[in-house]
């Protein structure tokens, strides 16, 4: 990372001042949230699916080494090659090496957050290899030299007029309206040539199956199919936590992911390939397994569940903080509630101290998470770590008496049970009454806990919590 990135409160203040961004974010998160609720409600066994999803992930993480070794064996048996990368640099070196080995100077790439995490495009560019992003949104962002704001709809902060401008400037078109259909057509024509000529395709992986060596890409536009089918060489990069034990496990995750993610019964395209197949698709396949901090997350028994994440982005869309600030405020490839717990654990708590505070702890993220990650619990746990880290930095009598540390320890207990958590929220509302009378609580008196509220930078606890509102809104269902 180059230079210290601005903290969450600083960037959030900038983001909140940008009205266009706020309007787009609000609209986007609301729309996807409503769609999701509809298709989730359709399934009578949603809770059972979530529970199995969680249990599979937990079992994988407890025996991650065994599953990875099995995966390596299966992929190799099916004609693929497996590479192991301890960190971003190593993964980038491996991928660049394969690309250069084929004398290619261009790769066709399907969106992968993991590749953003290791800054693959920059690393390739430094070695004279151009990565062509083929998702519509990624293309928009890449052409504009911008950054993603949402990992499902990364260009959601751009409206159609802005996209038209970007295309007119960078694509070979003379006339273009701002009709989404026309904009998509322009991108289709521009990229079709690239697909036909690319010699190396690069993808991420939503899942990989230890039993069979199969790897999956879940997508909408068809560029995932293109990248994983047309170029003669395919390289897929995946975090080590993405492995699933059996092919049967897909029946759970292929129900959980699309409904949680785009709010569709099923996304348009899911590609599953198993090594190489004669006469069909790439004849050379490389799977790069990336650690890059994941084993450090694994070590923390409370933080470990963070690795359950299937990157559906449901928690982003329900988060009252995220839906106002957007993704850029987090200064992290993983935004929203998941980013607030994953990033500090991946990069180390000292490098992302403010992120665990980018939340109101309202619990909405936990309720929608298809793999039941208790995000508030992990957040509180991490805040405790931030505090302890600060204490270690300036150890003295004041730090040791830090009321925030004591408060966090108490909150960690509260979050471990939903009943206790709800009780505490109701109590907190009563307790804050004298402070909240004039609207948002900006600072607590006395300075003891004021650091916390300054960073929290948020309004008073609402009269009804998001959870309570949600439960009422949806009638008898506790989880939507």
């Amino acid at each position, binding site marked *: 990372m180059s230079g210290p990135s601005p903290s969450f409160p600083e960037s959030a203040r900038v983001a909140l001042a940008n009205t266009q961004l706020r309007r787009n974010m609000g609209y986007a998160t609301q729309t996807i949230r409503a769609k999701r609720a509809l298709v989730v409600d359709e399934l009578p066994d949603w809770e059972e699916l979530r529970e199995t999803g969680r249990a599979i992930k937990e079992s994988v993480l407890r025996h991650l080494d065994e599953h990875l070794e099995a995966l390596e064996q299966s992929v190799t048996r099916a004609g693929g090659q497996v590479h192991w990368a301890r960190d971003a640099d190593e993964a980038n070196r491996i991928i660049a090496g394969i690309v250069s080995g084929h004398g290619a100077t261009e790769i066709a790439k399907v969106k992968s957050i993991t590749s953003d995490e290791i800054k693959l495009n920059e690393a390739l560019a430094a070695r004279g290899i151009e990565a062509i992003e083929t998702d519509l949104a990624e293309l928009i962002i890449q052409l504009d030299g911008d950054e993603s704001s949402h990992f499902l709809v990364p260009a959601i902060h751009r409206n159609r007029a802005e996209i038209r401008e970007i295309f007119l400037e960078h694509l070979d078109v003379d006339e273009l309206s701002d009709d989404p259909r026309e904009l*998509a057509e322009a991108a289709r024509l521009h990229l079709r040539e690239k697909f036909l000529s690319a010699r190396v395709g690069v993808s991420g992986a939503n899942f990989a199956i230890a039993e069979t060596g199969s790897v999956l890409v879940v997508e909408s536009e068809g560029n995932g199919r293109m990248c994983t089918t047309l170029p003669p060489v395919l390289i897929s990069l995946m975090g080590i936590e993405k492995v699933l034990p059996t092919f049967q496990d897909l029946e759970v995750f292929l129900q959980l992911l699309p409904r949680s993610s785009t709010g569709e019964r099923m996304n348009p395209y899911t590609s599953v390939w198993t090594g190489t197949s004669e006469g069909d698709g790439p004849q050379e396949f490389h799977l790069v397994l990336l650690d890059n901090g994941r084993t450090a997350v694994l070590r923390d028994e409370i933080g470990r569940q963070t690795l359950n994440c299937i990157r559906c982005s449901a928690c982003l869309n329900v988060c009252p903080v995220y839906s106002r600030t957007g993704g850029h405020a987090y200064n992290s490839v993983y935004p929203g509630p998941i980013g607030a717990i994953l990033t500090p654990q991946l990069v180390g708590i000292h490098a992302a101290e403010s992120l665990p505070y980018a939340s109101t702890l309202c619990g909405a993220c936990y309720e929608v998470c298809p793999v039941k990650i208790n995000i508030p619990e992990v957040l509180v746990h991490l805040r405790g770590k931030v505090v302890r880290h600060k204490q270690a930095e300036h150890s003295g009598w004041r730090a040791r008496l830090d009321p925030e540390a004591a408060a966090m320890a108490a909150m960690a207990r509260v979050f471990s049970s939903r009943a206790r958590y709800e009780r505490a929220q109701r109590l907190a509302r009563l307790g804050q009454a004298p402070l909240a009378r004039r609207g948002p609580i900006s600072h607590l008196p006395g300075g003891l806990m004021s650091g916390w509220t300054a960073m929290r930078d948020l309004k008073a606890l609402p009269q009804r919590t998001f959870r309570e509102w949600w439960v009422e809104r949806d009638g008898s269902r506790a989880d939507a």
Partner: protein
Amino acid sequence: MSSAREEILGRIHAATRDVPESEKADDVAVTRSYRQRHEASRDELVELFAERVADYRATVHHVRRASVADVVAEVCEARGATRMVAPADLPTEWRPSDGVEVIADENLSHEQLDGIDGVITGCAVGIAETGTIVLDGGPRQGRRAISLLPDYHLCLVEADQVVGGMPEAVSVLVDGVRSAGRPVTFISGPSATSDIELDRVEGVHGPRTLEVLIVGADPRTTAS
């Protein structure tokens, strides 16, 4: 210097020290109390499948076995498709009766495929609950590129290939993956994006038109 592989495996081992040595991967019980089967009649499943496929703005027709060739010819004509690629083993009864040239895929180049109007394939299984068709390179499906590059995909689904939900589909597919490493593609509607202000737009890269013929379905709703 230990290799990356050894080092990562070592880190994992150290990180999961709380897991008892005696516990093996298979020991961790995973309960699967979600629905494994849909209790519905064949007709109901086919009906639901047709409805759900249509929800993605794909076109669906019910076709009697005897009239497949005519309907294929009709729908191609309606799309203005005169040259269609098909896997070499596409049954004769599925080939358009007239007016359409069917090109067998004998290792056509990607450029050639790109220049063809459309593709006719069968499928491995259809999923009613999600309106999904699944291709696995088995009989009547051909390799992946042929159903990807042409802009129009005409897919024929036998009524008895339709199953209720994802678990049933996975059990149809699993043997082909285990024994032959078959590549599997789940297709739910035409290619789409919602990247521009969340407006769903058909077709960025994959086929922009998906048309599904359900063969041997309820004769009361024959053809369109």
